[in-house]
């Protein structure tokens, strides 16, 4: 049976269908999970997709983190379940305290939609498992508040414990230490600003995102089996 991935939808989320499409190409079966849901037990993995949850009003992720589903996501993550937040999903995860740090407006103070090149730094996270460190992937970003910030201690910790999983080669937003994606200590909760689901087909300009999505789907299958 295919890996079942719950794709969380807040009011204002807009990349949920794209995430479903990406997961499907990567071999998983995605299901939309409305933000009022409190049970995720039937899921093997969770994706929090991009968009503008609650309009991004106040701050990206600030209101979404109080949606009922986030408590369930917290439990799911605490039990070792794979959770990936893409773009707005990453912002939600930091607001919810499931990942460290915060986001501020892009350097340049403008929304940026553009292809970027990221380098895979470490491979113990659910989204980079099995990839070669140093692999370069061409994946687009699409955000206004995409500049990752954290205090020095957090940064030192992220580095020391190999939690920086992706770095930009052409930092589009001013993120500290060129961080494009991080994982928690255990590697099962991941946030990344680039949109791998937008790079799943050469027809769209790149299929590099599939490497990440496939890694995610197969490591989710492992978690379930194990």
């Amino acid at each position, binding site marked *: 049976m295919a890996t079942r991935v719950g794709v969380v939808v807040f009011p204002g989320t807009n990349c949920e269908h*794209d995430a479903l499409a990406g997961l499907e190409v990567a071999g998983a079966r995605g299901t939309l999970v409305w933000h009022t849901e409190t049970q995720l037990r039937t899921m093997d993995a969770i994706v929090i997709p991009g968009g*503008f949850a609650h309009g991004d009003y106040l701050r990206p992720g600030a209101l979404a983190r109080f949606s009922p589903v986030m408590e369930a996501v917290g439990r799911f993550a605490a039990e070792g379940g794979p959770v990936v937040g893409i773009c707005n999903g990453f912002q939600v995860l930091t607001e919810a305290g499931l990942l460290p740090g915060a986001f501020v407006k892009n350097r340049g103070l*403008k*929304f940026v*939609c553009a292809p970027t090149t990221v380098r895979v730094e470490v491979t113990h996270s659910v989204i980079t498992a099995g990839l070669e460190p140093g692999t370069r992937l061409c994946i687009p970003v699409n955000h206004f508040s995409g500049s990752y910030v954290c205090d020095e201690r957090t940064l030192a910790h992220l580095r020391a414990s190999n939690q920086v999983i992706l770095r930009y080669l052409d930092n589009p937003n001013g993120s500290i230490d060129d961080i494009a994606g991080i994982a928690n200590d255990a590697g099962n909760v991941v946030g990344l600003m680039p949109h791998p689901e937008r790079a799943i087909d050469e*027809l769209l300009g790149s299929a590099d995102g599939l490497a990440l999505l496939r890694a995610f789907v197969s490591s989710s299958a492992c978690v379930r089996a194990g």
Partner: protein
Amino acid sequence: MSVRAAEEPLHRALGLTDDELDRIVGLLGREPNALELALYGVMWSEHCSYKSSRLHLRRLPTAGDRVLVGPGENAGVVDAGDGIAVAIRIESHNHPSAIEPHQGAATGVGGILRDIFTMGARPLAVMDPLFFGSPDDARQRWLVEGVVSGISSYGNSVGVPTVGGELTFDSCYSSNPLVNVLCLGALPVDRLVLGRASGAGNLAVLLGAATGRDGIGGVSILASAGLGGGSGADAIKRPSVQVGDPFEEKRLIEACLALLDAGLVLGIQDLGGAGLACATSETAARGGVGMDVDVSSVPRRELGMAPWEVMTSESQERMLAIVTPGAWPAVEELCRRWEVRAAVVGTVTDDPSGRLRVLDRGAVVADVPASSLADGAPLYDRPLREPAGLDARRADDPTFDAPAGDSEADLCALLCDPSWVYRQYDSQLFLNTVVGPGADAALLRLAGPGLPPSERGVAITTDSAPRWCAIDPRQGVALVLAEAVANLACVGASAVAVVNCLNFGNPEHPEVMWQLSETIDGLAAACRALELPVIGGNVSLYNESTGADIDPTPVLGVLGLVEKLRRRPPGMGWVDGDASTVVLLGARRAPGALGAPGAPGAPGAPSPAAHPLGGSTWAVTCRSRRHGALPPLDLVAHREVVRLVTRLVADSVGGGDGLLDAVHDVSGGGLGVALAEMAISGGVGVRVESLEGHRELFSELPSRIVVATRRPDELVGRARDAGVPAELVGVVGGSRFVVDGLVDLGMDELAAVWSGALRARLEPV
């Protein structure tokens, strides 16, 4: 304003003429009350009634095999095949953007999206043709920044990709920027729904945002006329600018599409200009029924709103749906799920004369025939006059100006990368964008949530040429249509339908009416020649500043289709490798011209010029010469070139063997700019030989498309078979951009000039 109101009769203060008042009295058989007068005031405004342009618009061809819905509805709809229909519409939001660029543009996006999903279509793409004064002025930069950020923040957040547009700077827009927005959506053919009411006893349901005193603008005169409204003098000062809420709109889109999917809605209509007054009277009039609306049932954002305020408010993000009483509980339930407010505000009646009755807690406060509001405005056949001195302007041609000047510097001055604008737009959502902004046309997969599977693609482009239209609106708009169709060909799409946004000056100036009339005739003729229907449009008049009208600015959006979209089209960038050859398809010289360098030309007797420069970007930008004769256009020959290129590109897009490495049409800036853009895009230089001087480098003679190929003989053969002229003009390769005798620049330098041009002007310091 209040002083004027004290002196002026109410109807005039509301924008109605004395004759219009007489007409209203005739229609009603009595004097209207103040609320009724306000309803006529907004519904008979130029914006809502098209009273100055309607007579002319009738001359546009609107029929076509694929047309499911033509002009008159919220959007035009064509059958795209595979059970999918495509809805498209373009609109202006010029005046609000001039005073609050961010919100003005943002609400423009919101409004055009509603026009699309009101047809049952999911909005899939936006385009934004923009026109400003010179960016060397700080106020213009403020406008550009605000408009682009408004489109970006609303479009990105609501979740509709912006896949292209245009950016034009010209001093005629200094106090009157133009912000046009086009939206394209798709729907399963059987979800098509129209904005009409039916069935006595059915309910009129208001969906979305609460109603406040937004955008009441001119009508707020009623407050000062002492006719109620708790706001008093406050309302008069209220600006007619609204704040957009993309989050509300996003929920509204999902809720409305879910309601339509569930078959719960009989008719639906967005609330745009003139708010509830417009939505209720139009749905009733289209359905030939009556309607009762009780303003006390309308959810309010503000206290103490009078009936006229509720009826004319332009609060954003609202829709009016017609549902049966039996369906209402399910409608309520679905709306709750999407966190969208829904309230029954009225009922459909079987009143034989189709009256719209406005009630306030049950008491009738207005009672007028709905059709008299929606369709009863007088149609004006305003006087026309050709502007003085046009012949002299056309004769003042820059083509043979001497000396030629520094072509290398001129070319650099014409290069501009618009990505400063479009990088701020999400152009990729829905995973449909095969070709996004920055190319000749956008090319999208025809797919989306809820659509039947299809291999088809849909292409879209917007184009305009106000300078040309100022010299000759008839010929100018034909050239615009020709360019648009060529743009589509470059991504392999065949044009199928046209929408237009006619941005003009003050219609009370006979010269402006002449421009409008000529434009419509020119567009009608060109559409007939290319067998394209016009399926929708918008007219924006009174674009003027301190008495000066803008250049006539018809903006065309043209929709194209691709049968099989399996591979990316070649694009404009050529590739390095075994000698790709540059071939110019289409006549290299204007018909009838002699062709020898500098040919028949003493100044003063410029025509026929082989490489005309009248009205060209080069003449305006590099020589400040705005006049001259427009290049000739032969639509029959144009069609052949476009057909050939469409076939070649469509073949490669469909997965066939690609004969072309690169393709790009010659447009603004001429062959020089087209070649430079191809080189920059591919990152590879070129050597072009024996051009006929700077005129050939910068002429904007239409019907020419540049391609690169590694099989030039085969290509030339194909062109010959199709009756299309083809000439080898250069060879791709190396790291220099060379046009013999005219330009010799390193690719790095060329690319830097191109990519830095816009930023340098918009972000000085």
